[in-house]
């Protein structure tokens, strides 16, 4: 018999060992559960998915409330491979218009990605496909249709102004952490400038997911969820009909039409030709179409000529000089300059065409006399009563010209405008040497040739300023944000031109006479008093550009226009009738001269470049 009571003490060793283990475990649990926070966030990352709902993008209306761009539901066919049962692949491939092998390949790809997480099987179903599948949804277990919104254009025009949206790239996401992969962002035009207004606010939904990331219902009954806020609507200053009409007239020609409402600076039409249908840049073919447009190096449809093309303004620039010379007290209503088929200086001569001589300001505008402006510029730059040197005089001239909006951007909501070019005194100093140039050296600038370049919108703004007799509002393209009657206040600050109002009257009178009995007769609009100035910008070795700036009605201007038809020859030939039709369309909403319209719209200019 063994007495094991001698081992009784061993119970305490055993109990001690068990107890130590228990204490170690409790300490470990204390660290795991109470001290260390990382497990809590890991748990949330595990089980809570943040699902972002895109906000519908703001609608863009024209100035009269017609929809230019809105959203359309687009349906993607989604598949959860795990739930697919008894699939009739032949019928489904028939509905989707793809062959069965392609369908099977897509299904395999989806399954390879995940059996439980939905994958996109087919993007952007047609409405018929959608209807077919919804009708037969009981047959297609594991499939469902996921709605998303895409842009829908209600106009084939205004592509450059409206711009387009595209999926964000890495840089966009870097710059603004609002964006996540797959989001859309305005890439140009209004879509870009007003991105923050149009995009709205994304909604967030928190859902619980399991280890296969299957949706298991909302987290905390959705109390943390945020509804998406739709983007704000925009009322564009564009007149849809006028815009489309302008594009129709410009068909087959290169150039642009810019129409501005002088009293507000609102752009009524911004035509750049050739253009493209904005609908090309939505949907699944966006990338392909964009490359096609970008690679069209002959027509350059993506190039917005209205804002970016820089032309010598030609005779339209005489309006500027007529104003500047008056303001500088170089000429007045009684100043007469003679012209003998041009202006001779040294052994050179700047030619002119036949007209009465001598001319006052009014006559010089009406007849577009080159000599008059050469003499005016010489009188100003070589005037030693007002200015110590030619350079001083030139600086004064330069200051007044730039104050009219030339040589700089308006920096409004127009994307990618260029500045044009007004040479500074330093420019000439560099080129000719300080003190080595005088009025006659640079006198081609008096008639808008030489170094001077202007963009179509700058010319339109010039006529707008003239129509307003002294001031302008920066041209802009969005009237109202959020509410139709709200004013887009960013651009309603009046800019003074620095030219006194009284100096405009003779210029305007000259412009009117140019229409009634001068170079711009073809710009006339029946029943309205119109002021216009033609321009013919030399473009050696190619044909001249045809320019016209105009506004109407004279007494109460409603529209100011600049038209440029590249290689169109004389301003009167192409630009004047186009401007006339545009004004008539806008002012009367009817066209009384359908023959003229047809002859303009249907004729193309053959471009060799």
């Amino acid at each position: 018999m063994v007495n094991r009571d001698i081992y009784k003490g061993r119970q305490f060793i055993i109990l001690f060992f068990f107890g130590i283990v228990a204490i170690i475990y409790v300490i470990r649990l204390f660290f795991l559960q109470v001290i260390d926070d990382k497990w809590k966030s890991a748990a949330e990352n595990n089980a809570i998915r943040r699902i972002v709902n895109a906000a519908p993008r703001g609608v863009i209306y024209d100035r009269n409330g017609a929809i230019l761009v809105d959203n359309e539901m687009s349906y993607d066919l989604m598949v959860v491979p795990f739930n697919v049962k008894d699939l009739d692949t032949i019928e489904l491939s028939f509905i989707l218009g793809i062959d069965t092998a392609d369908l099977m390949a897509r299904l395999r790809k989806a399954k390879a990605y995940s059996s439980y997480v939905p994958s996109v099987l087919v993007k952007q179903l047609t409405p018929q496909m959608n209807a077919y599948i919804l009708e037969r949804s009981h047959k297609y277990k594991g499939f469902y249709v996921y709605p998303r919104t895409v842009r829908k254009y209600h106009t084939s025009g205004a592509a450059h102004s409206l711009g387009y949206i595209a999926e964000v790239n890495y840089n966009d996401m870097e710059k603004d952490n609002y964006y996540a992969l797959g989001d859309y962002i305005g890439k140009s035009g209004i879509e870009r400038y007003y991105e923050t207004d149009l995009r709205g606010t994304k909604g967030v939904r928190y859902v619980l997911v399991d280890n296969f990331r299957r949706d298991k219902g909302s987290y905390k009954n959705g109390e943390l969820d945020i509804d998406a806020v739709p983007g704000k609507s925009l009322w564009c200053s564009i007149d849809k009909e006028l815009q489309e009409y302008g594009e129709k007239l410009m068909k087959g020609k290169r150039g642009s039409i810019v129409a501005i409402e002088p009293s507000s600076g609102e752009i009524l039409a911004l035509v750049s030709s050739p253009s493209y249908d904005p609908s090309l840049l939505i949907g699944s073919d966006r990338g392909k179409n964009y490359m096609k447009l970008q690679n069209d190096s002959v027509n350059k449809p993506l190039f917005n000529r209205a804002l970016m093309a820089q032309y010598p303004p030609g005779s339209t620039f005489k309006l500027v000089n007529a104003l500047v010379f008056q303001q500088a007290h170089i000429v007045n209503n009684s100043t007469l300059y003679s012209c003998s088929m041009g202006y001779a200086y040294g052994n050179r001569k700047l030619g002119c065409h036949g007209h009465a001589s001598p001319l006052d300001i009014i006559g010089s505008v009406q007849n577009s006399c080159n000599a008059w402006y050469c003499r005016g510029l010489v009188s100003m730059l070589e005037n030693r009563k007002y200015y110590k040197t030619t350079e001083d005089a030139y600086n004064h001239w330069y200051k007044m010209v730039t104050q009219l909006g030339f040589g700089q951007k308006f920096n409004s909501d127009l994307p990618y405008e260029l500045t044009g070019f007004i040479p500074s005194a330093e420019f000439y100093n560099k080129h000719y040497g300080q003190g080595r140039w005088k009025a006659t050296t640079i006198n081609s600038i008096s008639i808008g040739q030489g170094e001077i370049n202007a963009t179509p919108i700058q010319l339109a703004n010039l006529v707008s300023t003239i129509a307003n007799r002294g001031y302008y509002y920066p041209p802009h393209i969005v009237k109202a944000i959020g509410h139709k009657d709200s004013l887009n206040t960013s651009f309603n600050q009046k800019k003074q031109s620095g030219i006194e109002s009284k100096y405009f009257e003779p210029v305007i009178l000259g412009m009117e006479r140019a229409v009634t009995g001068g170079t711009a007769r073809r710009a006339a609009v029946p029943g309205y008093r119109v002021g216009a100035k033609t321009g013919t910008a030399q473009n050696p070795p190619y044909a001249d550009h045809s320019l016209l700036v105009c506004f109407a009605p004279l007494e109460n201007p409603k529209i100011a226009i600049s038209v440029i038809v590249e290689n169109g020859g004389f301003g009167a030939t192409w630009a004047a009738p186009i401007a006339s039709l545009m004004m008539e369309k806008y002012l009367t909403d009817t066209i009384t001269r359908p023959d003229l319209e047809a002859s303009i719209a249907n004729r193309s200019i053959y471009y060799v470049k």
Partner: protein
Amino acid sequence: MKSRFDKRLIVYYLILVFIGFLSVLSTSYKQGHFSFQTSYGYQLIWIATSIILAIVICVFNNRFFWHAAPWLYTFFTIMLVVVVLFGTERSGAKSWLGIGNFGIQPAEFAKYATCLFLARRLSDMHCDLSKKKSLIPILVIIGIPIGLILLQNDTGSALPLLFLVFALFREGLTPWILIIAVCAVVLFVLLVYLPQWIVFALVVLLFAWMMFRLRKRKKYHLGLIIVFIIVTTYIFTVDLVYNQVLKPHQKQRIELLFGKINDTKGIGYNVNQAKIAIGSGGFFGKGFGNGTQTKLNFVPEQVTDFIFCTIGEEGGFVGTTFVIVIFVLLIGRIISIAEKSQNAFVRSYGYCIASIFFAHVAINIGMTIGLMPVIGIPLPFISYGGSSLWAFTLMLFTFVMESRNDNWD
């Protein structure tokens, strides 16, 4: 003589079973409809049958299990053989015996039978664990089920039987076994973190110091040298044994435990998710039914081997500590009753089941909190599953019944 069942043991049992049911319910209950065709539905059936089983046991004569022990042991040993030959395989281990739609795991019951038979053997007045003659049959009794369970490819289930060494220790087994085991584990852990030659150098230093201290007592010298040779052999062969004997997944689990593998997706997924679930519970837990990690299947085997995660996530530190305290009280109470018993069989049996319970609790909870390698064995009374609940109920209530007439308190 008046029968007195130990109320405390019964209360601890009921608490643990109730916590187990709540945990299973929490992870598998779907709002709105109750069904028996779910995990909690089955668990309810198993709890009910277990309680019936417990009541049935309590009406037996308290010599019954002493008599039945060899027969039960033989029966379940045969069952283990049957499983090895005809069992069904589930998740890599061939440990299930299918009877109709039901499957049982004989290994769980074999542990019960082993405890009974071992206790009977130990309570034999001629059994002296310091004698080889007595020790060998004991090792055979424990060795047979271990061998058969290993043949089922279910290393985890065999492991708790090794913990019976605590019971043997109480009944007179030389403490050297425990000391050697502890030394082997310590050396192993050292070898995981340190290069072999550093460990060897440390051992050389230790023995040199001991030789120096014992330089005058010649009788120890031979022993010390033999121990030194054994330890050296261990140091240089453990690597080999480790690589040859353990399966790749077992090695990975051990390496994961010691932080040799840093992985949260593949082999480390289970443990990482278990820690996330428990760690996210915080002090008070997320509340019943609010555990996202366990409810949403992030934790694998969440109602069986990893059920402690649900307790940790929903009950927080309070819940986990409570469960550990209940287990400590339960095991402590068993040992206390065993010590007070006049009956050697009751005492030995008490120590046997206390060892088994301790093994299961320590390994299971240790695994979920990253203190033990992943070994798939159930948490007694709490884990989902019929076999384990029945087997643990049998173990505990056999003890409750056997000890009823003892003058404890």
